[in-house]
């Protein structure tokens, strides 16, 4: 397509252009999709694309076989992923040198390459077709399906798949009030954490008069969560379309995408998307001849977790220090530049086109009564199939972790799952059958959060984990409220005392008491939820805290002050590997004779433990 394409001025023109794109797309149904998400790119998927291009050129297939560098395909653990269309054959852990073979064998000869197909780590069964994989089978990929087939830099791909149809419908057939009504009826709840009704927010903003703003919150700060990044990298136009529809519904004429700078690829993709949409006239003045127009700005974060909190985010968009402020007044009354402002999360906005296109009723058919639609989780940690999963709200944790996630790595025992990032909590095995919806998770002391789901096995120490989150928050708190700043630092002090073996039962009680006070007395969501990791680990794993305190032992073998390494003489063959690798020169011994660890010298890094081939090192 040439860059001088005229702007689309009406719905008819849009559908005419869409037919053209669809024809182009259909004509090229033989193509190879290579995952271009950060995860797979980090494993060299760009080189795979290069190798494919070269290979197609050599064989003179460039005209008949397409190559698409797509967004996240989901199964990040097995990256880089490659899917051959139209059969949808999925190859995993592909290296650039595999590409000629894929082209020759699969594309030309129609044969499946056995060594590249996915093998289930627990059952050992092989799967050649993407849709057959247990990982994908149980998912409902409404938002992520676009990732599979579209090149995120090409608006043509998105439009050919039905993209921007919802925008056309909204601005040419519906009034803003009707759009709001539809979203309200769909019971779309904010996917960023609190689960506030998005329709209600829009309605209130629509009713306000004067200059208004709509902000897309892409400051995904929860560690272990990357849903928003993958949406922006894989399908930026879906988010943009949601934002424009939101602006239409709230009558905001200025939109801002606030995105964190830790996601450079996502920043590039959304920038490109905005420019392409501008060129086609889908962003700008008088969209599709409706008289409605919107300007969209990009605001790049400067690195502060607290800016995910909406009032801090607004301070940051304004260029100030990201300190949350007292609500009320709420942001829809007085937000950015003291004007009514709606802030929606990336995933929330990506849901909007689906609602408008299929109608509220159809949308509500997925999920539960109070939590409708799907939710994307980033399933990470000690689980076999690390990746991005999209499931109907209300699916149980067990289904997600064991059926989709394929269970725990290396056949170890499940210990806990952490949801909701630093504001969430850890849930033990007894809650595996809990449905994942907003209320259920909050009720048991965790929360939905933005959708990070970190699975932990027997090797994770809960006291250490609580300390990890507190350390994170001590650093990320803005420091304004005394109870948050000093409270978190004191909570951390107490937890560290316990993990160093200096704890007492009195301190455990004090920890609980202080945690409740911090929760109760802090201004913003960060401080109010900061004690959750401590409170939930004490609630469900108090025994582990007690073992640390009373027996000076760390059952998971994590807390350094409480563990020791020793070489079992009869197992050691004196290979010297541990001695060579020990960074603190704590290991002595002659070749081919049992070695010995000097406990005073040892700083318990565990390198010897992981390098020993004879399991001669004992961790206690």
């Amino acid at each position, binding site marked *: 397509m040439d860059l001088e394409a005229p702007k689309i001025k009406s719905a008819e023109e849009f559908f005419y252009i869409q037919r053209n794109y669809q024809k182009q797309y259909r004509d090229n149904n033989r193509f190879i999709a290579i995952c271009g998400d950060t995860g797979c790119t980090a494993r060299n998927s760009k080189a795979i694309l290069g190798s494919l291009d070269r290979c197609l050129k050599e064989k003179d297939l460039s005209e008949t076989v397409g190559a698409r560098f797509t967004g996240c395909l989901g199964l990040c653990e097995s990256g880089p992923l490659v899917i051959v269309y139209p059969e949808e054959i999925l190859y995993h852990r592909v290296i650039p040198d595999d590409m000629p073979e894929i082209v020759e064998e699969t594309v030309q000869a129609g044969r499946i390459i056995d060594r590249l197909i996915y093998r289930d780590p627990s059952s050992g069964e092989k799967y050649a077709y993407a849709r057959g994989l247990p990982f994908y089978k149980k998912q409902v990929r409404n938002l992520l399906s676009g990732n599979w087939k579209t090149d995120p830099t090409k608006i043509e791909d998105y439009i050919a798949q039905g993209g921007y149809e919802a925008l056309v419908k909204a601005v040419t057939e519906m009034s803003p009030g009707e759009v709001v009504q539809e979203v309200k009826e769909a019971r779309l709840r904010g996917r960023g954490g609190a689960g506030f009704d998005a329709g209600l927010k829009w309605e209130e903003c629509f009713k306000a008069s004067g200059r208004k703003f709509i902000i897309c919150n892409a400051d995904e700060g929860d560690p272990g969560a990357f849903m928003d990044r993958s949406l922006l990298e894989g399908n930026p136009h879906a988010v943009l379309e949601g934002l424009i529809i939101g602006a239409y519904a709230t009558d905001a004429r200025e939109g801002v995408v606030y995105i964190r700078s830790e996601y450079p690829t996502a920043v590039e993709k959304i920038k490109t998307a905005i420019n392409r949409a501008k060129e086609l006239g889908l962003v700008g003045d008088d969209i599709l001849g409706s008289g409605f127009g919107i300007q969209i700005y990009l605001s790049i974060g400067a690195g*502060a977790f*607290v800016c995910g909190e909406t009032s801090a985010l607004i301070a940051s968009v304004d260029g100030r*220090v990201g300190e949350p*402020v*007292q609500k*009320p*007044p709420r942001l829809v009354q007085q937000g950015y530049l003291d004007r009514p402002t709606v802030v929606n999360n990336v995933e929330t906005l990506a849901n909007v086109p689906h609602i408008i296109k299929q109608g509220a009723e159809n949308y509500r058919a997925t999920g539960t009564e109070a939590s409708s639609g799907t939710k994307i989780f980033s399933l990470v940690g000690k689980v076999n199939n690390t990746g991005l999963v999209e499931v109907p709200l209300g699916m149980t944790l067990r289904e997600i972790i064991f059926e989709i996630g394929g269970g725990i790595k290396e056949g170890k025992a499940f210990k806990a799952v952490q949801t909701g990032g630093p504001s969430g909590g850890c849930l033990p095995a007894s809650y595996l059958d809990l449905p994942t919806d907003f209320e259920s998770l909050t009720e048991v002391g965790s929360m939905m959060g933005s959708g990070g789901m970190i699975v932990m096995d027997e090797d994770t120490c809960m006291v250490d984990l609580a300390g990890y989150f507190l350390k994170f*928050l*001590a*650093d*990320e*708190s*803005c*420091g*304004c*409220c*005394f*109870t948050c*700043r*000093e*409270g*978190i*630092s*004191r909570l951390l*002090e107490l937890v560290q005392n316990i993990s160093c073996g200096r704890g007492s039962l*009195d301190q455990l009680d*004090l920890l609980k*008491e*202080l945690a409740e*006070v911090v929760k*109760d*007395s*802090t*201004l913003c969501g960060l401080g109010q939820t900061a004690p959750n990791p401590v409170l939930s680990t004490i609630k469900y794993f108090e025994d582990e805290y007690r073992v640390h305190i009373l027996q000076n032992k760390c059952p998971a073998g994590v807390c350094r002050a409480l563990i020791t390494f020793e070489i079992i003489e009869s197992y050691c063959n004196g290979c010297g590997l541990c001695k060579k690798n020990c960074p603190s020169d704590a290991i002595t011994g002659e070749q081919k004779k049992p070695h010995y660890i000097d406990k005073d010298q040892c700083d318990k890094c565990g390198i010897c433990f992981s390098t020993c081939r004879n399991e001669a090192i004992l961790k206690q």
Partner: protein
Amino acid sequence: MINLTMDGLKINVEPGATLLDVARFYGANIPTLCYDEALSPYGACRLCLVEIGEPGKSRLVSSCTYPAREKLNVRTNTVRVMQTRKMIIELYLATCPSSKTIQDLASKYGVTGVRFSPKNEECILCGLCVRMCEEQMQAKAIGFVDRGVNRRISTAFDRKSEQCRLCGACMYICPVCQVRCQGPSG
């Protein structure tokens, strides 16, 4: 006028008033460390907490920043408020044990022991001096630097500020360190 209930009393207040304004006007005893009538409220010290909302769904908010709103049910001296406040004072006492103001607060609210390890901070980051410098002196020589547990108050690049006129207002308004505070040093 806004109608609300405070400690069971039905009262009318002007729009724009904060809960702290209302409470102090009606004589409720609410301690503060970061509040001054002449400066904009900041809500940093968290001592002025009050409980709002119906029992069962109530929560604590800082009264100095929370606006009076229609039909709000405010309680200034519930067990929850008092216990939370006591713990906050204990934290203050552990952080700045040598401050006279904090010692007085502790004795007034019956905080007799400190269960945390003592620190020897000289600043509680209430931000009164920062607001004083900006709002009353129109200088803006000092401000908050860094964040989280590392937050402190200083001049830009920690050296003498061109904006500082050595007026001493920052030292005057400091609730904690009083005489020890040297102001923005050169």
